[in-house]
């Protein structure tokens, strides 16, 4: 990472700490914002958060590793989360998943080579009455079929 980038990241984290406070209870909101901005929380970001909150970097890493929506290695700029739980599964999740995989040429769990899209499975999204459902970044899509799912993906490509 370039020195300039590092400085900028430190500044960003300082702003977040002003916003949420220097308490331990601010850790997750701070990490969530970094995640949102950079699509992952780098080693350097983890160290800076730890330093500025006065906790051990291992603590920060341990929290990140616990939560499905926080990650310490880079992901695509857009994250697609398709529900894999039973109601969506029975409503045709598999066909939707295969269609998306074919279209993007990657499997679930992978990121496109241009870093645009990461495909992931998620557990029940609370849309079971209108499944199959998926969340793309912060938007929820439901009543999916293969064609509809692919056209949604193509819009963010």
């Amino acid at each position: 990472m370039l020195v300039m980038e590092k400085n900028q990241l430190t500044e960003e984290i300082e702003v977040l700490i002003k916003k949420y406070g220097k308490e331990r209870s601010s850790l997750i909101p701070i990490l969530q914002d970094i995640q949102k901005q950079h699509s992952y929380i780098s080693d350097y970001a983890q160290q800076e958060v730890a330093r500025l909150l006065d906790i051990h970097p291992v603590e920060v890493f341990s929290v990140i590793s616990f939560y499905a929506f926080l990650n310490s290695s880079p992901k695509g700029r857009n994250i697609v989360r398709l529900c894999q739980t039973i109601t969506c599964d029975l409503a045709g999740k598999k066909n939707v998943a295969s269609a998306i995989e074919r279209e993007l040429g990657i499997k679930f769990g992978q990121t496109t080579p241009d870093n645009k899209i990461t495909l992931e499975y998620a557990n029940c999204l609370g849309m079971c009455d209108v499944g199959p459902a998926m969340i793309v970044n912060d938007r929820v899509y439901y009543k999916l079929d293969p064609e509809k799912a692919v056209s949604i993906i193509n819009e963010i490509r």
Partner: protein
Amino acid sequence: MEEKRKGAVLFSDYERGSAIKKLRDLSREDILFELKESKLKGRGGAGFPTSTKWMLTAAAKSDIKYVVCNADEGEPGTFKDRVLLMEYQALIFDGMVIAGYTIGAKNGIVYLRGEYSYLLDSLETYLMKMREDNLLGKNIAGKEGFDFDISIRLGSGAYVCGEETALIESLEGHRGEARNRPPYPVNTGYLGKPTTVNNVETFASVTHIVMKGGEWFCKHGTDKSTGSKLFSISGDCSRPGVYELPWGTTIQELLDIAGAENTKAVQVGGASGICLPKSQFDRKLAYEDAATGGSIMIFNEERDMIHIMNNFMEFFVEESCGQCTPCRIGNAKLLEGVKMLESGEYTFKYINKLKELGQTMQVASKCGLGQSSSNAFLSILENFKDEIFNVRKGGNHGN
């Protein structure tokens, strides 16, 4: 916007802010009395009496206390809190203000699951409106010294954080690992302060009880399960969705309402609940019979029960926080067992061992996740043994 929902209790008319304004003439004892009369039990699954929880938190000695709304709604097949959060904000937030008043808290926190982050803006906007109308903030509704405000915190994709002590850990900035109890949150909750954690629907029920009284609430439902319940109905039926029905409704009645035909099995209470066969469709949905936080998943004759078991066990293997051995290892072993059933490579001796393991997990696990994660496995094995052991794939497995 959909057409207006109708229901006897929760979906009955309510004018935003009116229960808060009513607090001007009510003491905290008055509210605790009505709650006790109502016999309201928590709607998040565990069914703990709300009046007792609030009484304990009110009695706990501390200048600082917290009201936490559990909007983590992660139980597979549950989406009724989503509907409340989208369409009935007044019921939820007014209920939280009432809780603050009753237990003596100045801060409320909504723990909203990360998957529902798309609701955040509209909820924040609604809270702003409440502040403008003096329904939040200082001297609320003109009542001297009654201050309360609500903030929203997002989850980050962990089912176990719906468990109240894991939720508190998460709020405090830690891994969402359940705590040993006691101490209970009513004494030692968020940041070590007395805290009442309640489900979204519980707060919504309280708001109606404050308006119409505990006696009115008891007119609905059964003797032990008063009031009505929101059921999230999904799966093989023509009219899935959220329905408000009185406790005591039978499974068959509910299937008819949802337009389910050819039903083989009903999963009551989500992945952590139990799977019932046709012969038990006359059972009542109530705390004293088939209890549920509201999740009802319908499976028709075409569905493969082993596939369903497999999906539930995969869920628990992923979502176990890994802190205690019965749950961490137990769920993985049960999943392995399901794979054996699927391939036909099993012995009855081993399957019986797994049943024992499932029962051990129910008593030896540290939190509700591990205590309930074998329910689906055990009940499907018990209630659908014909399909699993005989009919499947020509019927000569395991002999």
